[in-house]
């Protein structure tokens, strides 16, 4: 297998990029997209299934509720102090704690899970990243065998990449 190269194409326009992604997927090559904005077009063009984060959040939420009710009911029974003639385990008010902890745990797991799933934090840039990809240009990085480089360059160019650079992987 010959050495691999990376082609970095910069796009000004989102739709062109999406179009190009379609072609690359058809060609079944490995590529990466840099985008200054969240774009569900790009996202849906690349991925068919939505992120796992939601399962973590669901898990977190349920954990929160369970924790809350164990905490509230448990501690009440531990001391069974009567206040205001209300039942020792007063479910109605405990629902509030339940809700808050659900949100709290859910939120925390949302943050942690997305950061971890996105391989963050990291401090060496991904290959092919250009500062302006965080600002005003989209980047498309194609990884392919040196042999295919030409072909993909043309794909990119036809798709409307403004400038294309090639670097060794």
């Amino acid at each position, binding site marked *: 297998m010959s050495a691999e190269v990376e082609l970095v194409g910069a796009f000004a326009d989102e739709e062109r990029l999406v179009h190009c992604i379609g072609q690359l997927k058809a060609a079944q090559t490995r590529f990466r997209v840099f985008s200054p904005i969240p774009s569900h077009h790009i996202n849906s063009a690349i991925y068919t299934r939505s992120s796992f984060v939601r399962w973590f959040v669901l898990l977190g939420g349920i954990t929160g509720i369970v924790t809350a009710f164990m905490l509230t009911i448990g501690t009440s029974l531990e001391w069974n102090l009567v206040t205001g003639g*209300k039942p020792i385990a007063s479910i*109605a008010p405990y629902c509030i704690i339940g809700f808050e902890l659900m949100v709290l745990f859910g939120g925390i797991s949302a943050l942690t899970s997305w950061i971890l799933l996105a391989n963050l934090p990291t401090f060496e840039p991904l290959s092919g990243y250009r500062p302006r990809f965080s600002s005003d240009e989209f980047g498309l990085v194609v990884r392919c065998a040196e042999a295919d480089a030409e072909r993909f360059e043309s794909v990119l160019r036809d798709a409307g990449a403004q400038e294309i650079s090639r670097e060794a992987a």
Partner: protein
Amino acid sequence: MSPNSETASYRPGASGIPPSANLSAQPLSTIALVLIGIGILTFLIAITHGLAQRAWEAFLVNLLFFLGIAQGGVVASAAFYLTQGRWAGRAHYRLAESFSGFLILGFVLFWFLLFGREWIFPWIRHPVPAKTTWLNVPFLFARDGIALGVMTLLSLTFLSASRSEEARQWAATSANILMPPPIIRRLAPAVCICFALVYSLLAFDLVMSLSPLWHSTLFGWWFFAGAFWSAVVTMAFTAVCLRRVLGKGNIFTEGHIMRDMGLMVFAFSVFWVYTLFAQYLVIWYADIPMETFFIVLRVHYLPWAFMSWLTVSLVWAIPFVTLLGIRPKKTPAILGTVALLGLVGIWSELYVLIVPSLSPRTIPLGWIELLITAGFLGAFWLCSYPGLKIAAAAAMEPIGESH
């Protein structure tokens, strides 16, 4: 698309409707007529055979139920304008407005309460001395009648504005930040404000005053939130039906619209339970007899406890659990079932609010209630039918450039 084609396609029962959209409603309408007949008959038999109490209870429950749907629909449409929600082009506007036909009938039926007042308003037989200034028959019917009249007129005005050419133009294009036409900009807020006030008033007078000692400041709000939600679920349900009925190419086949419908059902069901909990918790906590007796009777003692919890599960628990994810929202079968159950829930909500105040010991739920409800259902269908045809027509039009 060209404006003319729209106008053509729009006029009720106009020829321009695509054949598939032409609901074959003849059998349904006949059934509806039969139901109405049965309903009226039952009602008459009931009041003549010493069952007037139950008859009037059922009457009031259904009146408020269907009036709520009809009015809620109009408000929903107004709300769409205010939020510039154009996610279903104009279809969801038409859909929301389609039940408005019942408004006038409802207004007429309201006056029938005059005949049933003796059975409906306990404070007529046993007046509460301190409250007679507010709780007396002439004043009550005067204020509620006027309020309802104003509400109805306003709604009708709004409807005509909303079905006007420019409004439809505006609704058709979602790709701009333009406001709806001026007339709408004036009417839509008016409708919403009026709805809040009038339906709070109705809640206080036609529901709360049935236990004249009880009061809850949030009650009105909760009540019209429920009415609004009942309209939303009816929309969802109808959308699901239309989706089936009007074969290919109708807008409801688009996934994101089902999702948005589901989202609305979900969101407002949560708000409903929030306002319910807000009342329950406050009353539970402070434990002031003047407030608790209303709750205790309905929540702590059978048979009402059962019905209360049924209501909560139908209106909140089931929608919440099932519609949490995105996929169920997009699945018409699920959404439709949930919506239908939701409607049952709202009906039983009204029932459990009204009936225990009048006959606290037993739970009179039998053929009288069912048949009278059936009668109302028939009437509601007939009133809504023209609106539904318009909605169907709108649903068949290709949506303007979407986001």
